[in-house]
């Protein structure tokens, strides 16, 4: 099992959710985060003049999926999240050893 963490533009969350659902991926956890990558920060206005912040609002999606769903998930995300400009976001994949569904106590793949 893998954990897919996708940091995306907030406005794309909905489309990504739908796109994942089409691949049968339902379960996910979402958080509001601040991020920077190549797209660094933004200059906002103060009462007069401006100040620059180093971080931009992003959304991070955590998906725990079966190994076979990793590529479909990446595809589902990139398909709708790509504009080709800096700031589209990133996807990180890391290993997950165990999953437990609290309500039933099930473990492993069935628990996803």
């Amino acid at each position: 099992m893998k954990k897919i963490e996708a940091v995306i533009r907030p406005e794309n969350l909905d489309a990504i959710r739908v796109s994942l659902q089409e691949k049968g991926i339902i379960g996910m956890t979402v958080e509001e985060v601040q991020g920077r990558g190549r797209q660094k920060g933004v200059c906002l206005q103060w009462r007069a003049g401006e100040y620059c912040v180093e971080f931009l609002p992003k959304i991070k999606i955590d998906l725990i999926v079966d190994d076979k769903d990793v590529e479909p998930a990446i595809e589902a995300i990139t398909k709708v999240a790509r504009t080709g400009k800096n700031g589209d976001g990133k996807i990180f994949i890391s290993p997950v050893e165990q999953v437990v569904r609290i309500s039933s106590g099930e473990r492993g793949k069935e628990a996803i």
Partner: protein
Amino acid sequence: MNIKKSMYLSIIISFLLLSAPALAADAPKVDTGDTAWVLASAALVMIMTPALGLFYGGMVRKKNALSTIMFSFAILALIGVQWVLYGYSLAFGPDFHGVIGSLSWLGLNGVGQAPSSYAPTIPALAYMIFQAMFAVITVALISGAFVERIKFSAFMVFSLLWATLVYDPIAHWVWGAGGWLLKMGALDFAGGTVVHISSGVSALAIAFVIGKRKGFGKQAMEPHNIPMVILGAALLWFGWFGFNGGSALGANGLAASAFVVTNTAAAAAALMWTLLSWYHKRPSVLGTATGGVVGLVAITPASGYVTPMAAIVIGVVGAIISYYAMLFRSKQNVDDSLDVWACHGLGGTWGAIATGIFATVAVNSASSGLIDGHAGQVVTQIIAVGVTWIYAFVMTVILAKVVDATIGLRVPDEEEAVGLDISQHAEKAYS
């Protein structure tokens, strides 16, 4: 002859009977309409102080939100008591050589339900409480200069000293019976010198003494809640109708005129600031709210003397001055954090001078300025402005240094880093 005589008699008697009530009216008598307006105005001015807390509080970082709001709220409490105990007496009590009121009205001794000479148609207590709200907000205004780093204890002590040694005397000079600036003919309808210059200049002075926030100029210090700022600005605008309109001390044509120029100057300045920010980058919401406040500041001293068209000029010019003063100030690396000097100090200064320019007998028979051909009024205004600048600046530096030397003005660096809400108040704004 009989007829004639009886006619005369009738006339005379009727006249006497009729004039009796008229004579009674000449003796100071409470007018219910005037009283209703001044009491409503006092309530309106009261809400301005917590509104200022929100206006300021939304502009600081989340970790200092409560601390900043507290500066205003605590002053409502502190000066609310100070004023009835002795502040009112110092400012408005029987004159002592034009410089200060005597202490004979201590504890509001002799300030009662009948009118005083300050306002012959409303209870003396109504005038007193209306003035109380001015004292409160003036002290609170300064807090924009030292947010996010002052010790609460130092703040309370400084504020009490400042109210007593700076506000009360200046209020006496300009508004107290026998005050020397009043006698000199300085015009200040609702507090350009007394309220805005005194607080704005003092803010600059204490900003110098306390020094910059850690990270100032290097690190973004984001306003944490701009809707809160707008709410504060809206309530300030709302309350300002009492501030300026109530300063007519009655519900009359002058009050209506003051009300109108207040709204007009605020609207013009807000619009101007929108355009300035748009010209430089984007039409700023924070800027529009700031512009409105600056317009309100600028019209304050002039509000009982000028026409609506003059109010537009006063608002627009006020916005331009404050806008560029803010840019200038931040480039100087001076941390008057919420620009009390640029908004109130300069807004008040411009307003006071503009009063000398635009005052006209068409609005208020008691005053005429440059446009009425009375250039001397501008000079008088400049003197009043200069005196207020100097007195406020010097006294504030002294008081701030004294407080710093005794209890210390600033919190330790770690406390500043953690934020004053937790370190000074053991509270968190949001959870």
